[in-house]
């Protein structure tokens, strides 16, 4: 009966609370189990309808190769040609979890409600469409920083909880992509909403969270079944993209893992040639989906009030000379890493050594946006190839 109704139940390792909807529906006679997820086929021309259905509860945001665009701003023509089979966007979804600038606190004797739980503005949460596996894996890195440990970041936690991700398996790659080098794959095993796998004429849509299930349920009352040929096509797409990645990264092959290479090569003069051409623009850290370092600063909340102040944070970059500067007079504030070579070494070590040692995974997911955006054409793959020689 499940097949007839067009719903295929697949095993998943994810555990989530399942509303009783599917179990109550008399057309569907399978027992709802909390560790299952639903899959359905969506024809290409139906995808705009799915994204429009999201708009009821979310602000739908499309990640195009060269832009992040609110879905409602797309022309009808654009909606008919969604870039879901194009390579990943040049932009990461980081700013939807960690805005480039945000207020962290309001304080001072003129603030009435002190010590309250902070709330992010109650606008519609975003549904991020066309996000790829590299970015989902990078969100895990961000989760480790902002949700684990003695303190939870209340702003990050709220955004993380409210958003929905419509991820897409990669059907093509950029020349900068290298996720498979780090042990990741260009397709999504566990998403944060709905995942779309490209097949002939459409997509296999899989709900990975209760929120994703809800959207799929509301979208189609009798969803078309996922057929065996679809499953084969999904697998073919995965293998084809992996092959593309392997081919594209062949010239960067190293004998050891990035971890092993850095462990064996502590920062030294050898690094100078690699990094002295850096112009310190911080583009790499800004586009990085897993870079999270921020700068906190205080200012008056209102120009004419002396008793209300605000604390803000903005993205920061470990490559900038004043990143770790300490107290000191004027221009001679000391920094533990005065040379760019040392700062670059710290960045690479953080990504491939320190985060790995502390959290058991790399702080990089191989999206390659850093090299894509680098004016000095620094590429982590090339750095590792040279260091590993």
């Amino acid at each position, binding site marked *: 009966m499940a097949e007839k109704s067009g719903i295929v139940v697949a095993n998943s390792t994810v555990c989530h609370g399942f509303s009783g909807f599917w179990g109550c529906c008399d057309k569907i006679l399978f027992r709802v189990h909390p560790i299952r997820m639903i899959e359905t086929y969506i024809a290409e021309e139906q995808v705009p309808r799915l994204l429009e259905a999201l708009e009821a509860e979310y602000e739908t945001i499309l990640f195009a190769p060269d832009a992040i665009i609110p879905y409602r701003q797309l022309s009808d023509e654009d909606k008919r040609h969604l870039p879901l089979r194009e390579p990943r966007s040049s932009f990461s979804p980081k700013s939807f979890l960690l805005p480039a600038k945000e207020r962290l606190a309001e*304080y001072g004797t003129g603030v009435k409600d*002190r*010590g309250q739980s902070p709330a992010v503005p109650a606008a519609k949460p975003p549904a991020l469409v066309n996000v790829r596996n590299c970015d989902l894996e990078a969100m895990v890195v961000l989760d480790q*920083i902002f949700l684990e440990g003695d303190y939870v970041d209340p702003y990050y936690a709220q955004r993380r909880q409210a958003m929905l991700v419509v991820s897409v398996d990669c059907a093509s790659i950029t020349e900068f992509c290298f996720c498979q080098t780090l042990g990741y794959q260009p397709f999504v095993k566990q998403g944060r909403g709905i995942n779309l796998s490209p097949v002939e004429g459409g997509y296999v849509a899989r709900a990975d969270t209760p929120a994703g299930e809800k959207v799929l349920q509301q979208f189609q009352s009798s969803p078309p079944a996922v057929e065996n040929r679809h499953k084969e096509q999904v697998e073919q797409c995965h293998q084809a993209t992996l092959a593309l990645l392997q081919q594209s990264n062949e010239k960067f092959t190293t004998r050891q893992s990035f971890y092993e290479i850095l462990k064996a090569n502590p920062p030294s003069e050898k690094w100078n040639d690699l990094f002295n051409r850096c112009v310190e623009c911080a583009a790499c850290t800004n586009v990085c989906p897993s870079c999270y370092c*921020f700068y906190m600063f205080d200012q008056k909340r209102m120009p004419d009030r002396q008793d209300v*102040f605000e604390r803000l944070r903005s993205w920061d970059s470990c490559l900038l000379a004043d990143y770790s500067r300490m107290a000191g007079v004027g221009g001679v504030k000391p920094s533990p890493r005065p040379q760019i070579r040392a700062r670059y070494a710290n960045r690479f070590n953080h990504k491939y050594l320190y985060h790995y040692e502390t959290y058991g995974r790399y702080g990089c997911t191989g999206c390659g946006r850093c090299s894509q955006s680098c004016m000095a054409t620094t590429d982590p793959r090339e750095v590792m190839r040279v260091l590993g020689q």
Partner: protein
Amino acid sequence: MIADYPNPYEPLLCEVEKVTDETPTIKTFVLKMDKPFTFRAGQFVQLTLPGVGEAPFTPSSSPLESDRLEITLIRTGSVTDRLHEEVQPGSVLGVRGPFGKGYPFEKYKGREILVVGGGCGLAPLRSLIYMLMHDASDYKKISIKYGARSPEELVYRASYDAWRRSAPNVDMEVTIDAPAPGWTGRVGLVTTLLEHLDLAIPNSIVFSCGPEIMLKFVTYTLLDLGFKPEQIYLSMNRRMSCGIGKCGRCNVGPYYLCKDGPDINYALIQHYEDVF
């Protein structure tokens, strides 16, 4: 405590009760806490000058006292300049914390404790000294070595004799960097006080705090004397900002000094290029 607080980035407001001039460049601010504020010796707080910003300081008062917090700070940068210029009794400041691990001194009962301070670095060590002296008989020896640039720059000068007299196993030696009129004590960098230690080195543990250049030479001197890296705890100088291991700027290798320090065992960090 901030752990019970819904927003870890919001400072708790408190009133300044007293401001003491310790030296021409160092002042102690006594803060009156509305709610009991407990911390471990060596843990730090983020002190906010409203509208100007925050800077990290380790309290210099005794952790045994929870309704007053003393912070001794040297005038050396944009926030500390303004703190020195503007703050008076009655001023309102903000506090977040306590953060970090603090000195693991209780682990070393029965051992000989060497405390090495430089300049304003005696401030965080004072809260440790209070704790050590509170249970002085638990330690075989408590030896304090302290150096400053000049006699005027010695902090808590009136306390030294009381510390020396507090228990038979406590001693304190003081030095200044260069000869000064009227000074009859020792002259030379604080490392010169380490040359003739009256301690059994294998049984000793060192806690040191001071300017980075001093920590570097204290560490190298101690290693030359036969101390092992594991026996040395350093209060590392870094720009702590969020205080809770998220903003990323205070790392030495994989350690964030705001949560894994600021007092950290030298054995953990010795191989990283940017330690000193």
